[in-house]
C-alpha cells in the first residue's frame, strides 16, 4: 500500500504509506530496476515468424547475448546480469535471455540505448525499458499502488493562479483552496508554507506545475525560512515541456514536477482528475495499479497499457520496448474487406415522428470479450478456423488476455450503472458517476488503441476483426428490426434509429431487442424514445451527415422556456461544440425549443431575428461571445492569419504564450481588421464586438436546424430581409 514513491539521486527509494495520523516513510536502499534483453527480432516475428513464431528451444544464452553480457559486465550502470527464462511475447514459450539489474532508475534507459548501438542494428530486443518509475517500483517490489483509504482518507490542498498570469507577480493572485493567499508574493508564499504545515496534505493539486518552482524561487527571493511543499526538502523536475502528436492531434505536455512524500496533480495536465475527480482517480488506481501521481498525468492509453502490463506479468510475458510486431501478410482482397471500417446506414434526412434509438451496450469491449479477441488469439497460427466475418481470420480456442483485462471493467461499469439507478443519495450518485466516467473512457478507447501503431500490445488485425464483427452485428440487428415491421432510419457503429414502417404491424421493440441480444450475445438496449428526430444534411449537400441530429425525447419536459435541458438531444451541432460562444448556443437552443413547438422554419427564423436585434443594439454581454479554440500549433507555425493566430499573438503581447494542446479564448471585435486588434482576450473586458461576425455565426447555427426541412443559408437571409417584425408565434414560443 503506497501513497507515493520518491527516487533520490543517491539511488535510494523512499516509499510513503498512510498511517492513522500521518504517513510512514520507508527507505529502500539499493533498489535495482530490471530490464531484459532477447535476441534479434527475426527469431520472433521474422524468418521463422508468420503464424508460429516460437523459436527453437535452446539451453543457455545465444552467442550474441553472451557477447553482450561480457561487454556490459562491470559497467557502472549495471548492478547485476543473469540468465533467466521468460516469455518475450504472448505467443512464445519462455526462453533463456539476459536479465539486467540497473544501478539506478535513470540507468535503465542508458543501458537500453547502449545495447541498441552495440553489434548489428536490430541485433537485440529490449524489454521492460519504458515503464514509468513509480509503476515499475510497485510491479517489481510487489507493492500495491493503492494508498489504502481504509487507514484514513486522503487530505488534499489546491493551489491556483489564473491561467493568463505568470512570473512572481502572479503569486499575488494565488488562491489556497479558493481563498486568496496574500496581497504580495511574500505574503502568498508564507500563507502556502503555513497551510502546508498545518494541513499536511497527501495530495497537492496545482493549477499549473510551474507553480512549484515558482514558489520555491519566491521563497528564496523573499527569504522565507525553511519553505517546503514536500514532506522532505526540495522538489524534482520529472520531465520537461514537450509537444507531441497522438492520433493525429497535436498535444502539449507541460513540464512535470513532484515533491517528496506527496502526490502532485497538475490541473493543466490531467485527464482523469478532470473527468473523475480524486475519488474516481483512486478507484482507477485500484483497478489499473498505476500509482496516483502517474495516473494524474496519464493518458487513457497509458492506463490501458498499465492494465495490459499487469496482465502480461501474470503470464510471465515481458513488455517490449519498441513496437516490433508487424502485421501478417494478407491478400489485398482481405485488406480491401478490412478497410471498409464500421458500417453506417446513411441517415434519412428530414424530420421523423415516433423514433426509437437502440444501442448495443459497450459494443467494442463486448465484442473483444465475447469473441475472444486479443493480440495473441487473432490469426493465432495454431487453429485453422474461419471465425471473423468477411476476413476469414481464425481466433484461437485458448482464452486471450485482452478479454480478461476488459471483462472486470465491463462488469464494474454495468454494476455501477445499476447502483446509480438505485441510489437516492446525491453524494453517493456523484461518486458513482465519477467512477463510471473513468472506466467509460478506458472502455471506449480500447478499440482505437488496438489499431494504434505504437501501442505496447496493440495489433492491427484485432482492430480489423473487431470492426468486422461490429459490421456483422449491426447488419443482423437491422435485418431483425426490419423483419419485425420497423423502418431503420439511421445506424452508426453501435446505434440504430427506427420508426414504425408504414402499412405494417410492428412486433414490440423490447421483444425484438431481447431476441437480437440473445442471438448476438451483447445486450441491445432500448436507449431512448423520441417524439421526433431531425437528421441534418451535410453542409452543401443533400445526403445525411452521419453524426448531426437533434430530437425531442418522449416524456421529458423542458425545464423552462428557452432551456433545452435533457428534453432535446443534440449531436454534432453548434450547441454541442466547445468552441461555440455561449450566445450562439443560446440562440440555437431557443430555436430548438421553438422548432419543437412549431416545426416551423419561419418561427425559428423569428427567434433568430429577435436575437440579432439584441446583438445589433449592443445588448449582448461580451462574456457570452467568447470563442474557445484548441491550439493546434505555435502562433508562428500557422500559415494563415486566422482569428486564432490573432488571439495567440495578442496573448503573447500580454506575456502569455499558449502551447499546442491548450485552449485560447477570445472575443471577435473586428474580424476584418488587422493583426492583434481583430480580437480581445476575456480578461481585457472589452465592451465592443463584431456584430457581423457573430451574426454569421448565429445564422450558421440556425441553418443547422432548418436545413433538415430543406432551408439553406440564403433562405434564412431572405426571410430575415423580409421580416420587419417578429411574429406573434415567436413571442408565444420564446418569452
Amino acid at each position: 500500500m503506497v501513497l507515493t514513491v520518491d527516487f533520490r539521486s543517491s539511488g535510494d527509494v523512499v516509499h510513503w504509506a498512510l498511517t492513522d495520523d500521518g504517513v510512514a516513510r520507508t527507505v529502500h536502499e539499493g533498489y535495482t530496476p530490471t530490464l531484459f534483453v532477447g535476441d534479434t527480432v527475426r527469431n520472433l516475428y521474422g524468418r521463422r515468424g508468420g503464424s508460429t513464431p516460437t523459436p527453437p528451444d535452446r539451453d543457455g544464452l545465444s552467442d550474441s547475448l553472451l557477447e553482450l553480457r561480457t561487454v556490459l559486465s562491470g559497467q557502472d550502470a549495471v548492478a547485476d546480469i543473469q540468465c533467466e527464462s521468460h516469455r518475450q511475447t504472448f505467443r512464445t514459450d519462455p526462453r533463456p535471455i539476459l536479465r539486467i539489474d540497473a544501478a539506478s532508475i535513470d540507468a535503465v534507459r542508458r543501458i537500453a540505448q547502449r545495447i541498441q548501438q552495440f553489434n548489428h542494428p536490430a541485433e537485440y530486443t529490449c524489454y521492460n525499458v519504458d515503464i514509468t518509475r513509480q509503476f515499475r517500483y510497485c510491479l517489481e517490489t510487489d507493492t500495491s499502488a493503492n494508498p489504502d483509504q481504509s487507514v484514513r482518507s486522503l487530505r488534499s490542498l489546491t493551489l491556483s493562479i489564473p491561467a493568463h498570469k505568470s512570473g512572481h507577480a502572479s503569486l499575488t493572485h494565488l488562491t489556497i483552496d479558493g481563498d486568496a493567499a496574500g496581497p504580495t508574493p511574500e505574503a502568498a508564499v508564507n500563507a502556502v508554507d503555513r497551510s502546508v504545515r498545518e494541513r499536511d496534505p497527501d495530495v497537492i493539486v496545482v493549477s499549473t506545475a510551474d507553480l512549484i518552482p515558482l514558489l520555491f524561487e519566491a521563497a528564496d527571493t523573499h527569504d522565507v525560512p525553511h519553505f517546503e511543499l514536500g514532506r522532505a526538502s526540495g522538489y524534482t523536475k520529472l520531465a520537461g515541456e514537450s509537444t507531441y502528436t497522438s492520433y493525429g492531434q497535436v498535444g502539449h505536455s507541460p513540464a512535470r514536477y513532484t515533491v517528496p512524500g506527496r502526490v502532485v496533480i497538475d490541473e493543466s495536465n490531467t485527464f482523469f482528475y478532470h473527468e473523475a475527480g480524486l475519488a474516481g482517480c483512486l478507484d482507477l488506481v485500484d483497478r489499473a495499479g498505476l500509482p496516483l501521481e502517474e495516473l494524474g498525468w496519464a493518458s487513457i492509453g497509458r492506463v490501458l497499457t498499465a492494465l495490459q502490463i499487469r496482465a502480461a506479468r501474470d503470464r510471465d510475458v515481458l513488455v517490449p520496448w519498441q513496437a516490433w510486431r508487424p502485421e501478417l501478410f494478407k491478400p489485398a482482397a482481405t485488406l480491401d474487406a478490412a478497410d471498409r471500417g464500421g458500417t453506417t446506414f446513411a441517415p434519412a434526412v428530414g424530420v421523423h415522428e415516433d423514433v426509437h434509438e437502440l444501442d448495443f451496450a459497450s459494443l467494442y469491449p463486448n465484442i473483444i470479450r465475447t469473441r475472444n479477441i486479443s493480440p495473441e488469439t487473432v490469426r493465432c497460427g495454431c487453429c485453422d478456423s474461419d471465425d471473423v466475418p468477411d476476413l476469414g481470420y481464425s481466433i484461437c480456442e485458448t482464452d486471450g488476455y485482452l478479454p480478461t483485462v476488459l471483462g472486470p471493467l465491463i462488469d464494474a461499469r454495468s454494476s455501477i450503472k445499476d447502483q446509480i439507478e438505485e441510489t437516492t443519495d446525491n453524494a453517493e450518485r456523484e461518486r458513482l458517476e465519477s467512477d463510471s466516467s473513468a472506466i467509460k473512457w478506458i472502455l471506449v478507447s480500447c478499440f482505437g488503441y488496438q489499431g494504434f501503431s505504437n501501442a505496447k500490445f496493440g495489433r492491427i488485425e484485432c482492430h480489423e476483426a473487431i470492426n468486422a464483427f461490429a459490421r456483422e452485428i449491426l447488419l443482423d440487428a437491422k435485418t431483425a428490426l426490419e423483419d419485425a415491421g420497423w423502418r431503420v432510419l439511421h445506424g452508426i457503429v453501435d446505434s440504430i434509429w427506427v420508426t414504425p414502417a408504414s402499412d405494417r404491424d410492428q412486433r414490440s421493440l423490447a421483444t425484438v431487442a431481447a431476441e437480437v441480444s440473445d442471438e448476438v450475445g451483447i445486450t441491445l438496449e432500448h436507449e431512448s424514445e423520441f417524439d421526433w428526430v431531425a437528421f441534418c444534411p451535410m453542409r452543401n449537400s443533400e445526403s445525411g451527415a452521419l453524426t448531426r441530429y437533434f430530437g425531442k425525447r418522449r416524456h421529458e419536459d423542458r425545464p423552462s422556456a428557452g432551456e433545452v435541458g435533457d428534453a432535446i438531444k443534440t449531436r454534432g451541432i453548434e450547441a454541442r461544440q466547445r468552441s461555440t460562444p455561449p450566445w450562439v448556443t443560446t440562440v440555437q437552443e431557443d430555436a430548438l425549443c421553438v422548432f419543437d413547438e412549431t416545426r416551423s422554419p419561419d418561427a425559428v427564423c423569428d427567434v433568430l431575428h429577435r436575437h440579432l436585434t439584441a446583438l445589433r443594439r449592443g445588448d449582448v454581454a461580451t462574456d457570452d461571445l467568447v470563442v474557445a479554440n484548441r491550439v493546434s500549433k505555435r502562433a508562428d507555425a500557422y500559415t494563415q492569419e486566422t482569428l486564432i493566430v490573432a488571439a495567440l499573438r495578442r496573448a503573447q503581447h500580454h506575456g502569455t504564450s499558449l502551447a499546442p494542446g491548450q485552449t485560447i479564448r477570445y472575443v471577435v471585435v473586428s474580424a476584418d481588421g488587422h493583426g492583434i486588434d481583430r480580437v480581445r482576450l476575456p480578461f481585457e473586458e472589452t465592451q465592443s464586438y463584431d456584430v457581423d461576425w457573430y451574426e454569421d455565426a448565429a445564422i450558421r447555427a440556425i441553418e443547422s436546424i432548418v436545413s433538415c426541412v430543406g432551408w439553406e443559408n440564403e433562405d434564412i437571409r431572405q426571410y430575415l430581409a423580409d421580416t420587419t417584425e417578429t411574429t406573434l408565434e415567436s413571442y408565444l414560443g420564446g418569452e
Partner: protein
Amino acid sequence: MNTSRQQPRVELPELDAGLTLVDIDSDLGVTPVQSLLFDCVFAGTGGAYWVDAAGTVQTTRLRELAPDRRYLDRIHVARGFTAYQQTSLLDRLAGEHVTNPSVVVATGIDRLYRDSDVSTPHAQELLVRSIAALARVGRVHDVPVIVTRSRDDEFTEPVVNAAKTQLHCRDTQFGPRFTDAAGDVDALVYHLADGWVQTTLAYWQEVLAHRAQMHDAPVVSEETAPQIS
C-alpha cells in the same frame, strides 16, 4: 474505350531481377508502381509481396486497376507503421512463408526511419539493413524488387548505390514515361496517335488490360472493367 483502329502500343519497363529504385513525379502517385506490380504478376506464375511503409497500400485503387478481381488474392500486402515493424517485415520477406513470388515491392523504404524516435546513426543502419534484406530476397527468388523512397536526399543515398537500376517515372505531355539515367530504358507507357492523354484511372485501367492480354493473363469484363477492342 479504345478508339484507335490499330492495336495500340502499351509499354512498361521490363524489370530485371534485383533492386530497382523507382522515383515518381509526385502528381502520378503510387499508381505507376502498382502498374509495374500488376505487370510482373501477369508475366509470372506467383504472387506479389508488397511491404508498405508509406501509407500507400490503397486497396480501392488496386481493386479498380485489377483487370480481374482474382489478382487481389495473389497480391500479399503488409504495412509497417513503425521503423521496427518495417524491419521485422523485411526480415519476414526472407522467410519460408514467402514462396514463389513474381515480384517484391517496398514503398517508402526510408519514411519510418526518419521518425523522430529513432536516432540518426541508428536510422541509417536500419535503412541499410533493410536494403540488404530486399536485395537478398531478389537474389534468393531471382525476381525484381521495386523500391520507392519518400525523399531524394543524402539519407537515401544507400538505396541509390544498392539499386541495379534507377528509374524515373515522369509525367510528360504524352503521358507517363519511364527513363533511366543510362538511357537503357525509355518507355512511354501508352502511345496515342493524337498525343493527348489522361493519366487517370481509366487510362491505367486500359494500360493494364492491354498488358494482361499481352501476357495471356486472365481479364474479365465486369461492368467496371474496361472493354478491350
